């Protein structure tokens, strides 16, 4: 059955390619690159923009899975989730919220299910090392979330409500108003689910999987004069989740998490100079109840104060220079961690030269930390345009990740003598972009050393050590094709495919919990007021042992959605996820749901 659907999809794509006339219009993908904004500084990398009109009620894993071929892991629907880019670990993808890296100082990750993607102006995924710009943890890549300020006067309101299987309700509300000088946006997403999905093939349900969460934020901006603006941005997320059982082990636990991100800053911009100042406070709290009906729980907190300043000069001869410095004060505390403070300071410089065909860039960053010696990081990058349709790009970078507070201070086991992880990454890419067809190819290699891993020291005592050296190499390919079959019929197709081989340099074995192949296909059709999408996701088999003897089988997901736009205010969608009711796990013994349904009502003013 799935083969029929897939072949159908392939045929459409194949036929369309045959009939494709040569077009000359140049349109480098859909990413808008404004002068002197942060985006421009990501050239020489392949940036993918994640945009979905239904993002309001989506979870971040849903959105990432639909738009990119990333490997993701989830401890059951709605539970702790992370992604892995280019064969690195979940703590090697940095989540960047309005320019501030927000991964937990306690565990090094951002739980994607507690980070709502609702209401952002832009979401990008950038693969490749980015430590110079984003510091610790930006090894496999970064996911960038931006709330932009819109000073053109107007009022916008959008409300999305979703009802889905397993007694799931989601509501996302977003209100925006601008007077020309003053901009304000309020956004919220509320989710609640009983989440008692049956484990396909077993006579059990996810009986301890209910969750509830709210994520809201206020964005405000004031244009002091034409060159200067002030802003305040925030994101607050409170989650209360039971923790799903495995197939063979019941659970009775519950996890409450709180994340608060507050940011204020200002921007001064002249024709040849821009300065941006940010001050941020990030707070995280985890409360784990081993037995949800008892009050006893374990507690951990993390806090970060960040001050960051970036200045950019546009110089003669198409030269640009960026100077940045950043100060972080990190405080960790909990039942298993005594109060510890770590101060980090970073100084970085980026130089870019652009001419007609060639962009070259050099980056250098030095970090100072009260707890560790951090190596000098840097990058060299280029982008060469052969013509307006073809270009090559490449980069080489050295990146790092600091040990987390848990790695350093967790009792028992924490090891304060850990060194930062280090990686050398290089990649080469080719982009071909025509009016209706685009093709991107990237070949990469990441060599990481001093990787931190918790290993058994004796029977019941584990300790993190700088353990392994790992090489990850691979290829990423993506095709996009758009065609208007007639005035009323439009088609778009994107196929992405990743191959990565991640091996332990000492043993030569493939690292467990890392697939070799990930594929993604998104076909959309638009006819008058109807929108149809077919999404296919493939994840290759994953070894679960370091000896490469046991594995989770590969799986495929097929999702369908149909949207009808009644008028410019109302829109209804119906989605079927996992149409073929496939059994799949991303972590052993933790099945994800079979076929499920979603109904979404969207109102826009």
């Amino acid at each position, binding site marked *: 059955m*799935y*083969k029929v659907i*897939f*072949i159908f999809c*392939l045929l459409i*794509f*194949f036929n369309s*390619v045959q009939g494709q006339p040569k077009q000359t219009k140049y349109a480098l993908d859909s990413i808008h690159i404004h002068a002197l904004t942060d985006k421009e500084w990501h050239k020489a990398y392949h940036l993918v923009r994640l945009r979905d009109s239904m993002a309001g009620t989506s979870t971040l894993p849903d959105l990432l899975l639909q738009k990119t071929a990333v490997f993701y892991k989830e401890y059951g629907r709605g539970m702790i989730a992370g992604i892995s880019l280019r064969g690195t670990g979940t703590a090697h993808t940095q989540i960047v919220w309005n320019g501030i890296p927000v991964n937990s100082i306690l565990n090094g990750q951002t739980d994607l299910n507690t980070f709502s993607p609702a209401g952002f102006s832009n979401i990008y995924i950038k693969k490749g090392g980015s430590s110079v710009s984003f510091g610790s943890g930006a090894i496999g890549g970064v996911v960038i979330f931006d709330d932009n300020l819109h000073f053109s006067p107007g009022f916008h309101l959008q409300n999305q409500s979703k009802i889905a299987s397993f007694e799931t309700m989601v509501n996302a509300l977003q209100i925006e108003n601008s007077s020309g000088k003053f901009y304000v946006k309020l956004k919220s997403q509320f989710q609640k689910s009983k989440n008692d999905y049956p484990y396909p093939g077993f006579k059990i349900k996810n009986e301890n999987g209910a969750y509830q969460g709210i994520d809201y934020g206020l964005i405000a901006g004031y244009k002091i004069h034409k060159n200067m603006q002030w802003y305040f941005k925030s994101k607050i997320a409170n989650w209360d989740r039971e923790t799903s059982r*495995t*197939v*063979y*082990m*019941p659970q*009775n636990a519950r996890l409450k998490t709180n994340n608060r991100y507050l940011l204020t800053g200002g921007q001064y911009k002249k024709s040849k100079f821009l300065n941006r100042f940010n001050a941020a406070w990030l707070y995280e709290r985890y409360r784990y109840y*081993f*037995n949800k009906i*008892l009050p*006893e729980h374990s507690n951990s907190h993390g806090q970060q104060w960040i001050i960051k300043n970036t200045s950019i000069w546009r110089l003669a001869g198409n030269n640009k220079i960026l100077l940045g410095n950043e100060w972080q004060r990190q405080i960790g505390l909990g039942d298993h961690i005594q109060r510890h403070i770590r101060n980090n300071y970073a100084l970085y410089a980026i130089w870019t030269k652009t001419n007609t065909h060639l962009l070259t860039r050099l980056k250098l960053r030095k970090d100072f930390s009260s707890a560790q010696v951090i190596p000098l990081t840097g990058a060299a990058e280029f982008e060469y345009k052969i013509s307006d349709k073809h270009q090559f790009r490449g980069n080489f970078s050295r990146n790092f990740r600091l040990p987390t507070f848990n790695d350093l201070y967790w*009792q*028992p*086991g924490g090891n304060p003598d850990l060194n930062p992880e280090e990686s050398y990454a290089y990649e080469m890419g080719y982009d071909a972009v025509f009016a209706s067809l685009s*093709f991107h190819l990237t070949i990469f290699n990441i060599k990481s050393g001093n990787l931190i891993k918790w*290993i*058994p020291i*004796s*029977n019941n*005592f584990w300790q993190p050590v700088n353990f392994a050296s790992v090489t990850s190499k691979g290829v990423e*390919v993506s*095709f996009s094709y758009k065609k208007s079959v007639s005035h009323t019929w439009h088609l778009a197709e994107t*196929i992405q*495919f990743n191959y990565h081989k991640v091996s332990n340099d000492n043993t030569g074995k493939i690292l*467990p919990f890392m697939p070799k*192949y990930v*594929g993604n296909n998104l076909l959309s059709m638009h006819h008058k007021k109807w929108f149809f999408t077919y999404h296919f996701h*493939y994840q*290759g088999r994953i070894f*679960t*042992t*370091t*000896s490469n*003897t*046991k594995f989770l*089988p*590969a*799986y*495929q997901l097929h999702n369908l959605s149909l949207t009808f736009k009644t008028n410019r205010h109302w829109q209804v969608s119906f989605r079927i996820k996992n149409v073929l009711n496939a059994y799949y796990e991303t*972590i*052993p*013994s933790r099945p994800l749901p079979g076929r499920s349904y979603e109904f979404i009502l969207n109102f826009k003013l």
Partner: protein
Amino acid sequence: MKKINLLLLFSLFVGLTACEKTKIDENTGAFDKGIFVVNEGQFMHGNASLSFTDEKLSQVENDIYKSVNHVDLGDQAQSIGFAGDNAYIVVTGSNKIEVTKANTMEKVVTIASGLTNPRYFETISSSTALVSCWGDPSVTTDDYLAIVNTNSNEVTGQIPVDLGPEKMVKNTDYLFVAHQGAWGTNHKVSVYDLILKQITNVITVGDRPNSMVIKGNFLWVLCGGEPSWTGNETAGQLYKIDINNNFNVVATYDFAVTEHPKFLNLDGDNLYYYLNQKVYKMPVTATTLPTGEFLTYSGNAYNMETYKGKLYITDALDYQQEGTLTGFDLSNGQVIGTQRVGLIPGDLGFHFN
């Protein structure tokens, strides 16, 4: 051309998954004489398994429970015990005991009710066995021994005990339960009177009693002591207790504060224990701890047991791959064989009917 190749490549992967293989070994054989290895499996990964090998470790058969019964064993298999013709596989994480025919591994029944974090199984009569259970490990007051009727294979009652019951040994009159302390720590041995059918004494011993043997009228209890990571390190201790004289402690042998021995075993008139990659041999008549080791083990023992002149050590390696079982001859300390078994091999069940 490039595009077409890629499409083909992509569709190939779709084809690949359609023919996933499941390996099932039909040649299960009989398990009447040999050693069962209980492979704990990774925490919450549901990949516990059973291996079977002969006493000389000349060959091994892995994953035998699944081969015979075509279902997974569960999460964190802790131990194996025997009663009548049946084997009782205690699966801690899944809160159950899988009852199988010992000679064929064919499943008889699952005991799923009345067991919360069961640990070890010990028969006390032809129809009764006791199973040490932690209860909810976040609660320190709900630990118990489950009473299992081995004819009906049901839990018929509970005997409340002190925190963290673990290993059990018995003679004709008493069953002794070591309280290592589950998630916490404890320093007690409970005495269950097999005739009165109740706990009659609680003996205070050193911190974290981890293993026991009985030789004649004496119970030997090896206490690991508090490890350094607790911040309150205490020395390991070996206790000698007179069973017939009111359970008086007749001797204690103290290790250095940084020494945390484990896996006390008996073979003939000698005690064997493990400490920092070394196996020590101590005659039951000795008045002091041995100074030199009997043999050195190159890995990290996850469990060690003696059986009829042989000593077996399991090794979990990195806990993310199949571990090993190595046998030694106690007459000369030489290796008799080694086999690759399952993930995190622990308890051994010696079955020679």
